[in-house]
């Protein structure tokens, strides 16, 4: 357990020194601040476009529009950034050969993979939850205050989906030696789970991306039971991908 903490501390320090955390923080902060602003000004921009013979009637923007923007940006721009930052987690250590010395110490390969997931779990959770708090406060100040608990459920669901994508990206990073290839594999899984699976009826209900599909209902009426299956699917998927990554890594020879 001590070694796990040592490895996590090293990974967090690496994310900080190599500015990975900074890049993610800037992107998440940008999304947190720009989403309510865009929701507020988009109708005004559209109204200002003067098309002769056409009258544009738009409802007044609400916090729901800001949440729409926030979820859309998080599930697209932020997730892409997360995928390409996490892609180097294991593959970079292989290609830069820093693994050679580390794995000849009393470090188990299981702990090594777990440390990669947990360090990104801590940093992404901290950044995303901070961004969510900023978003909530800013949106409440621009529009009207909305239910904090319901928003927290949506934020945690988004985080869970993000961690599912992190787990599959770590698996991809374990399987290949090149971080770009790992990023592309992670992106492929993101596309599959987000778009393709949702179009195939038997898979639709067991798609991790479903966790974000009912966020409007959750914001207006609370979690209910609609989140149970997607939450179980996400948690199971994370555990499954991390176990596969560990099994694969334990069998891998570290090439020169």
């Amino acid at each position, binding site marked *: 357990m001590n*070694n796990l903490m040592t490895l996590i501390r*090293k990974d967090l320090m690496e994310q900080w020194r190599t500015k990975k955390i900074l890049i993610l923080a800037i992107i998440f902060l940008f999304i947190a601040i720009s989403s309510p602003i865009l929701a507020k000004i988009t109708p005004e921009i559209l109204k200002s476009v003067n098309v002769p013979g056409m009258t544009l009637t738009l409802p007044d923007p609400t916090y729901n529009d800001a949440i729409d923007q926030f979820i859309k940006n998080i599930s697209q721009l932020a997730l892409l950034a997360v995928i390409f930052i996490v892609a180097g987690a294991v593959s970079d250590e292989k290609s830069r050969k*820093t693994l050679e*010395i580390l*794995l*000849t*110490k009393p*470090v188990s390969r299981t702990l090594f993979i777990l440390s990669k997931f947990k360090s990104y779990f801590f940093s992404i959770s901290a950044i995303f939850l901070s961004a969510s708090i900023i978003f909530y406060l800013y949106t409440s100040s621009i529009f009207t205050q909305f239910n904090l608990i319901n928003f927290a459920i949506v934020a945690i669901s988004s985080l869970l989906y993000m961690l599912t994508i992190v787990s599959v990206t770590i698996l991809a990073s374990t399987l290949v030696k090149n971080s770009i290839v790992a990023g592309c594999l992670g992106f492929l899984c993101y596309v599959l789970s987000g778009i393709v699976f949702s179009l195939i009826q038997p898979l639709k209900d067991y798609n991790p991306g479903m966790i974000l599909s009912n966020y409007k209902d959750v914001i207006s009426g609370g979690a209910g039971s609609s989140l149970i299956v997607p939450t179980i699917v996400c948690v199971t998927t994370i555990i499954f991908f991390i176990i596969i990554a560990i099994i694969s890594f334990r069998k891998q*020879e570290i090439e020169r």
Partner: protein
Amino acid sequence: MPIISIKNLTKEFKGFKAVDNLSFDVQKNHIVGFLGPNGAGKTTTLRMLVGLSKSTSGEIEIAGEPVIFGSSKTNEKIGYLPELPSMYGWMSGIEYLDFIANIFNYSRPKKTKKITELLKLVGLVEAKDKKISTYSGGMKQRLGIAQALLNDPEVIILDEPVSALDPIGRKEVLDVIARLKSSCTVLFSTHILSDVDRICDDVVIINNGKLVVSSPLPELKEKFAAAILEIELAKMPKTILADLKKQPWTKTIEQNGNKLRIWLTDSKVVEQNTPLNFLISQKVGILRYGLTLPQTEDLFINLTEDNK
């Protein structure tokens, strides 16, 4: 009881045997030079010893424990320095040693004491706070040695530890290795045979993945080294080299200008003046003629030639 025991070790890559049924032992507190030409299988063997690579068959034991691929049990007892070691460039030297010390769960006072000692030993006290990415090749090598020594290992395995260093750096690193003899066993691969002469007790020579010889160095010199006849001629006739190669007492010839080094099959031919008579019969001017004591390099050439 040997501290490293390798039995029938084989490593195959897609049908090619990089290491072929290799067996040898390393005795405790010995410094052992692990020699072989490029592609002989030295690095592959060392990587199996430290659990980075999986053997196709065979057994390895270190300090009485079997080495199992992917398991870190024997890693408590070893220190390993790969050829051209890669460490986290964003860390400083002292941070890297601190990170490795934490893996071994050292208490803070023990950790501080050990790191200070090692930084002094490898001469990195002044550069300890600089980022590793700014270190020269020699500094990285010395930091690599420090990390390998951090856990007071019973066995240190070094893959070409001095090949990338300048002569001063090489001497410094070899001095460090020589000082380790009283406290641990060192197995190191190298191409630089004079280094083996300088610090090794034993040598293990492999070629094409197979063991050529494993022996204490003085015994090996006595037992295997063929006598070498050093000759300098006034001028080098065109056919002399080919004619010399045909002689039954010639094993191998090395030419450097008008100088020849002939590895003899039997040194008795010198007592009988056989090579001298041959040269006289060729009517060539002889400037120098005499036997020389074989060095490890000569031994290596002789043994690997035999193995071909």
